[in-house]
């Protein structure tokens, strides 16, 4: 398409200056942008306002929506141009005139003198960034309101409704997960993204109920009933020690967990605690105290007394006669099977897991040597252990059988069993009585020998009683199973050549069963120091290395009453 554009400029005197330009191309474009063929310096004109092109044999004008143009005083968007049409675009007048030969369309272009020129030429050169529609204010508001809405207002409003909160979490928008300060510990993965499972009430710190809802049945309290956890009301909060959003610290293992109270336990418990103060294992920790049963108490866990290992009065009333030194004689012990040298492990065997030792049981650990046989003729025949009446019955049965061997008693038959007389001579009743009498006498003699001299009294305290049937009494044995029940010590973790049994337990020098062979704190301090002593060349051991907080010997954990002045 070839187009002729005739620019008309009216001089003040009325003379008209004319310039012509011929355009050749697909379409004549009109607009304010610089890439337009006819550029209008007029704000009322769009950047790409309209185009004039040839469709078949006609010349048409088409505006780019939403722009429109006034043609012959009518507002149009798409129109076929014909001769004499007057187009008004802003302050410009375009008139379609007769085209000369070889030209498809011709138009004149002039400024409308009747239109105020304020908008013409007023397209200011955009010399500064502020003039190119780059605002600070708009972006500031957008960012401020956008971030505030996405990260605070919307999630907070959604908190009120469970369904809406779930919906927000499932969607792509930021939800309350953006508030998380860190991933949960693996053990808490089942909570998933339900923040409100623990953060139950806004602006209230996570309450213990939230923890106890799951952990309640298995959780024990720390101190004994009646002793406050601490003066700090915060110390009763689970979260004080368990930082859920710090996986490495879900369970705190630093001394600062304990020392705020244990630095001065008397003050914290108003004088009720008898436990010594401790702040550091290496420098400030009380001597170990072994837990012993109170004499005469019947296994009641509360009736225990605790005695420091360095106390001169420390004796364990086990009512047993035993000397470690004799048994560990390096020259060996004479046994039925020859001379044997005993080691610790011959009697003290670790429990499964290896932490503690199995209880010493006579039949397992002693009877191999301390046999309970009573008739040299039958050395394999042994008495039951731990039952005085049973011993007497066994002896009586044994000797009766021996003296009446071959003479069954026709009267002694079980119910429903018919006695069939065997051929041969029968024992007269008087003779039978005589033989039974001998058996009883024999039983008495052997029993006295066993109880008072040979077998029982070797290890036990045996007393004679006036009881006619069971005339002996063996004092029950109390062997402590856990000397330090509150401490977690693991033998298996100390099973090195540096830590032979005798390094901590002075068994070679112990001649009395009453000796308590538990080591004192000095023994541990040879290798262990407090957690702050990383430079001492020793193992840095904080409180939790040996102690637990939730003590299974105490009662169940209960929600402590809210301290006054705190949120309800």
């Amino acid at each position, binding site marked *: 398409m*070839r187009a002729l554009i005739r620019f008309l400029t009216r001089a003040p005197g009325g003379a008209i200056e004319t*310039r*012509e*330009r*011929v*355009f*050749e*191309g697909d379409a004549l474009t009109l607009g304010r942008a*610089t*890439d337009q*063929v006819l*550029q209008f*310096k007029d704000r009322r004109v769009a950047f790409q306002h309209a185009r004039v092109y040839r469709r078949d044999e006609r010349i048409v004008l088409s505006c780019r929506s939403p722009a429109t143009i006034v043609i012959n005083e009518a507002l149009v968007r798409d129109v076929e141009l014909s001769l004499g049409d007057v187009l008004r675009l802003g302050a410009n007048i375009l008139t379609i005139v007769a085209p000369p030969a070889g030209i498809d369309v011709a138009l004149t272009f002039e400024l409308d003198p009747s239109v105020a020129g304020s908008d013409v030429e007023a397209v200011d*050169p*955009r*010399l*500064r*960034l*502020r*003039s*190119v529609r*780059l605002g*600070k204010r708009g*972006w*500031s*508001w*957008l*960012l*401020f*309101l*956008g*971030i*505030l809405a996405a*990260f*605070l207002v919307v*999630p*907070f409003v959604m*908190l009120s409704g469970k369904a809406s909160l779930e919906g927000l979490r499932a969607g792509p928008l930021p939800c*309350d*997960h*953006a*508030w*998380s*300060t*860190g991933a949960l510990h693996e053990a808490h993965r089942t909570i998933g993204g339900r*923040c409100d499972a623990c*953060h139950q009430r*806004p*602006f*209230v*710190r*996570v309450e213990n109920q939230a923890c106890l809802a799951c952990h309640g049945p298995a959780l024990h309290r720390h101190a004994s009933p009646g002793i406050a956890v601490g003066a700090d009301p915060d110390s009763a909060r689970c979260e004080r020690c368990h*930082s859920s959003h*710090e996986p*490495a*610290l879900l369970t*705190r293992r*630093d001394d*600062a*967990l304990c020392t705020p109270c244990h630095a001065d336990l008397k003050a914290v418990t108003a004088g009720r605690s008898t436990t010594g103060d401790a702040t550091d294992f290496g420098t400030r920790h009380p001597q170990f105290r072994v837990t012993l049963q109170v004499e005469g108490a019947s296994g009641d866990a509360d009736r225990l007394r605790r005695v420091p290992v360095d106390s001169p009065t420390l004796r364990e009333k086990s009512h047993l006669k035993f000397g470690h030194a004799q048994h560990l004689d390096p020259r060996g012990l004479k046994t039925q099977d020859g001379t044997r040298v005993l080691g610790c492990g011959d009697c003290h065997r670790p429990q499964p897991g290896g932490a503690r030792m199995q209880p010493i049981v006579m039949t397992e650990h002693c009877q191999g040597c301390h046999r309970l046989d009573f008739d040299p003729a039958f050395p394999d025949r042994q008495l039951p252990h731990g039952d005085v009446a049973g011993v007497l019955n066994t002896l009586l049965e044994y000797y009766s059988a021996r003296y009446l061997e071959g003479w069954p008693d026709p009267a002694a038959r079980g119910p429903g069993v018919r006695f069939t007389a065997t051929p041969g001579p029968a024992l007269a009743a008087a003779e039978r009585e005589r033989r039974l009498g001998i058996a009883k006498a024999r039983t008495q003699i052997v029993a006295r020998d066993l109880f008072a001299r040979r077998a029982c009294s070797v290890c036990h305290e045996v007393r004679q009683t006036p009881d006619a049937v069971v005339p002996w009494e063996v004092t029950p044995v109390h062997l402590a199973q856990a000397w330090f029940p509150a401490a977690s010590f693991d033998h298996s973790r100390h099973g090195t050549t540096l830590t032979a049994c005798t390094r901590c337990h002075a068994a070679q020098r112990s001649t009395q069963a009453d000796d308590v062979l538990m080591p004192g704190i000095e023994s541990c301090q040879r290798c262990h120091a407090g957690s702050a002593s990383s430079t001492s060349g020793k193992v840095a051991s904080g409180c939790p290395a040996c102690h637990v907080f939730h003590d299974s010997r105490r009662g169940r954990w209960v929600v402590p009453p809210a301290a006054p002045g705190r949120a309800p």
Partner: protein
Amino acid sequence: MSSVHESVLGQMGRRYLWLAVGVVVAMFGLYGWQAPTGLPGGGTWLGYTLGTLAALLILWLLALGARKRSYASKLGTVRGWVSAHVYLGLAVVPVATLHAGFRFGWNVHTLAYALTCAVVVLGIVGVVLYARYPERMSANRQGRTRQQLVEEIADLDARAVRVAQALPAEFDDAMRSARDRLILGGSAFDLLAGRDGSSVVLPRAGGSSGPLSNPYQATLLAWLGDRLARSEDGELSARVQELLTLTSAKRGALERLKRDLRFQAWLDAWLYLHVPLSFGLLAALLAHVASVFIYW
């Protein structure tokens, strides 16, 4: 360094420099001294202290925007505020880092931290730009104002159009088109990159071209050169030579102006990010503080 810049960050700002250094050193000292129970972070007593300090600093830094606009204020000079803004603004990043305990994640808390860092980095960009560009701008303008540079170009255009009036119509058309289609500023990109988006419509055999890109009048100069080479008329050649000289002068003036606009655009640009991001930071800070206490 320009003298204006020196007075803001130099002599006058020295006391704020020492204040900022003092605050940062004190906070690092406290951080090293304290033994947090658990990991360091916003939840410890020092964490709350550092967080409060950082938040107050940020609010005060934002107040510069208000102080700048209130010309009647007697609350210190704007210069004093700017130097304090720069030095205490730099102090915010270490304080916020200690507040975070060097721990970060994909959450609103780190968003606030990241925005803080972005705003401070943009502030540093601004300080550097203001340290370098004003001097280069005055060297470029050589004592003239921007308006004088614009007028010089307009004057050269007017002279060229007058010369072309006496020549064949194609020269008249070309020079008018080059005048009308000259773009001094342009889009944000044009301003920042110094790109010239001017165009020109040149006569062609049998009509005229569509608009041709005419960066720094290069297309027009080539066309004039071509016409000069083809001219066999001595008088015409002399006139075309005059047009070439005028257009070359226009090109020089245009380059100078565009360079001036580019410096100006960069001096403006960092603030177009610094300010909106500051408000984004304020929102993130509010969300950070509120969310911490909502999910206490």
